[in-house]
């Protein structure tokens, strides 16, 4: 299956973006899951590896300034590739927003979602070229 969810969380543990793929969690389950994962990941230091096992997921996380990118994957997913994927996502947002920061994502949540939507569908990576990812979004920006 691949990616089960993508989460963006700040240092305080507040969710800034959440996208689940084929995961049917109720609101409470989701909140609990996010809380547990975030607590686990935030407690780790830089020297420790970027992978955490939680319930039946493996969480691959990477920190950019105050933002943590957490991606939940199946157990047989290539963890290193997911790390690369996180970086690609950040670079894509960076290209669009220019020096992307937490506020960009907060105030343009839908844009961040559009980008993610172009990159991942149903938990599978669909596009890895930044210009291909951004083309429809830029087109829409121009039109409006």
């Amino acid at each position: 299956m691949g990616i089960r969810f993508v989460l963006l969380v700040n240092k305080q543990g507040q969710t800034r973006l959440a996208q689940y793929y084929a995961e049917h969690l109720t609101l409470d389950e989701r909140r609990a899951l996010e809380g547990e994962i975030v607590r686990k990941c935030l407690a780790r230091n830089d020297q420790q590896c970027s992978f955490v096992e939680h319930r039946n997921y493996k969480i691959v996380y990477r920190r950019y300034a105050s933002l943590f990118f957490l991606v939940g994957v199946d157990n047989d997913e290539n963890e290193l590739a997911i790390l690369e994927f996180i970086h690609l996502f950040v670079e894509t947002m960076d290209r669009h927003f220019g020096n992307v920061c937490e506020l960009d994502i907060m105030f343009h949540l839908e844009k961040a979602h559009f980008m993610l939507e172009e990159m991942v569908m149903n938990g599978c990576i669909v596009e890895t070229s930044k210009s291909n990812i951004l083309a429809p979004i830029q087109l829409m920006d121009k039109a409006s």
Partner: protein
Amino acid sequence: MNPFSSGTRLRDMIRAIRACKTAAEERAVVRKECAAIRSAISENDQDYRHRNIAKLMFIHMLGYPTHFGQMECLKLIASAGFPEKRIGYLGLMLLLDERQEVLMLVTNSLKQDLNHTNQYIVGLALCALGNICSAEMARDLAPEVERLLLTRDPNIKKKAALCSIRIIRKVPDLAENVLSQAASLLKEKHHGVLIAGVQLCTDLCKVSADATKYLRKNCTEGLVRILKDVSNSPYAPEYDIAGITDPFLHIRVLRLMRMLGQGDADTSESINDILAQVASKTESNKNAGNAILYECVETIMGIEATSGLRVLAINILGRFLSNRDNNIRYVALNMLMKAIAVDSQAVQRHRTTILECVKDSDASIRKRALELVFLLVNDTNAKPLTKELVDYLEVSDQDFKGDLTAKICSIVEKFSQEKKWYIDQMFKVLSLAGNYVKDDVWHALIVAIGNAPDLQGYSVRSLYKAFQTSSEQVSLVRVAVWCIGEYGEMLVTNVGVLEVEEPMTVTESDAVDVLEDCLTRHSSDITTRSMSLIALLKLSSRFPPTSERIKEIITAHKGSVVLELQQRAIEFNSIIQKHQNIKSSLVERMPVLDESTYIAKRTSSSQADIVADKSTQPSSAGTSLKLPNGVSKPAAAPLVDLLDLSSDDTPVPTSTSNDFLHDLLGIDLTNSSSSGTAPTAGTDILMDLLSIGTTPVQSNAAPEIVSSNKAFAPTSKPAPTTVQVVDLLDGLSSNGSHSEAQTPIYPSITAFQSSTLKITFSFTKQPEKPQVTQIQATFMNLSSDAYADFIFQAAVPKFVQLQLDPASSNHLPASGNGTITQTLTVTNSQHGQKALAMRIRIVYKVNNQEKLEQGQINNFPSGL
């Protein structure tokens, strides 16, 4: 902007939420916004629908309910403009899931949009479908998606391919239809289409073996070519990551190759070369390169690779494992897990490194490494590995001890070749991490000790020593307590000393010290303390000099507030005081459980429930009695065994666990076999306890128990279903007052029962006179002879007035073929403060012989 709109802008809402300092403030802001959005929805406000959904998405992300916005998404999707549709679809994907009925309504809009002329709108619909479609939608819309797989536009093609993945996962039957199209996707140039196509093929392999065959035949070459192209391609800025062109595509292709090559020599052979090329040429100084190598090694391990290729893969593994980057080491451990099935020798070579990883500071790495070590253990290396792990157990993190202990225990159990080693290792684990050891593990240890007569002395002495240093480890304490109880004399007399043992002198009172320590320690749980009581009872017969002291300790617990301990103390006390003649046989060693049947039972029930597991334990005297009286427990063989020891005088034909209590008290009835075997239809054996009155021995014993027990008497429950239990408890208690039973309905009780006579009381009360209770007494003859001149007499305490009405008859027919009823009116002057009690005396004639029965009734429902 509409000046009349009460809503705020999205930006303002986010600002307001950010400004919130507490969760309560945030909730207030969100509640206000949700209210505004709701009213906008009910007014069918079109202008701000778009904005409202954007707000709801944000609110949803924060974790608040947003279901009321679902229909708005559908309206947005149905509108004509692209921005509306865009946000509508996004809202649909975020706010809905496929369980929602609303989803059915969107099928039609999706169908229209899939046929739209605008490629972006088609893309939106495909994306939504790919993310949320249900099996039903999959069937409805599959033809549209199949058609879109054939379009020219690569953006639509890739999305249609991924959409097909969802569809075939939901409805595997549809796999056939896309098979050939999926294969042709691999001939494209566009990377997006390729990566989507490769993933579609991978999923096809998962759902159908036929598809795998087809793809092996038609795609292997194509895959080799793709991989060759990307790995040899010159610099491609769009897909370049750290000097490697599109590592994501690499990885997906390698993964599909693994699916195709698995168990197929021909395919494996045709991809051998390219795998060798990727494995040897990929740069390993960057994460992207390592990701590819990682996948490549997994593929080599998964297919029928040549030995040369395997060596290459194993070398990469070794390099990974010695890498300083923790991420790389983590995946190396992961790969080794897979490699172990292929080449366990190669993995064994890395054993020392892996053991180092078990001790890493990083929890993720430790966990992986521990799993791996567990797989590495075999008969030859079990001992050194266990030693390493046990040594590490001492210094490991608290939160890792649980995992580590479980693994060590299972290694020790699985690979022990000699008993002494097993026992030694278990003792070590118990004294280092006894709090983490699962119950079934130490239960098994006790069974093993029981089966090793030559090691029992050694065990009990080692445990005694371990207890001195690790008395805070619960399961160590339990095993020690059990062994001291069973084999205490070996502790003192040094029976069967092994050569390795250091001589030690333990006096009898030292052993009792240990048990007393366990019993009085506050941190000890009830199970441990109950086990200690049993052990003390056993020691009292094994160490006669200490029996006085043990008696004192047991007596001290007769007032315990813990029902279980109190009950045991009272029972044991009466055994010690009154039944010296049978005590020694009563406290004999537990019968040895057959180890092989025990292990078989344990493995079969290990995945079932713990309760069942526990009841198979030899120590269930300690565990199963946790429930008051053990009444609701399933039959536990060891208990029955224990009872059999006491059944010399009272034959007990039944074998339900309820007999335990019955028999324990039956000890009192050593010369009245009639009540022991009373065939009361087998329903309520506990009822026999009330036959207390049948012999003089008994009626003397009962009041004494009552007196010792007054202060801590458990309150009884006036529920008819528990009457039997209540009877038992009340037999011991003076029925403490109970406040909650204010309702004038009281359950009937069995006031008295012997083998020959049963008396039931039913109660009525008038609400305005709470002190006055009318008791309807019903007498039933249980014997086969009719009773004549039947007279019932009753006496009550001073604070109660009693009035007896004439009985309905003075002749009681045999075998329950008729009853006598009699009404008693009781006035309790201290109603609410003191409970009712009554002494009764029944006189009647059987075959002209005078008979007398008497007893005390303490089990009145509270509140009378």
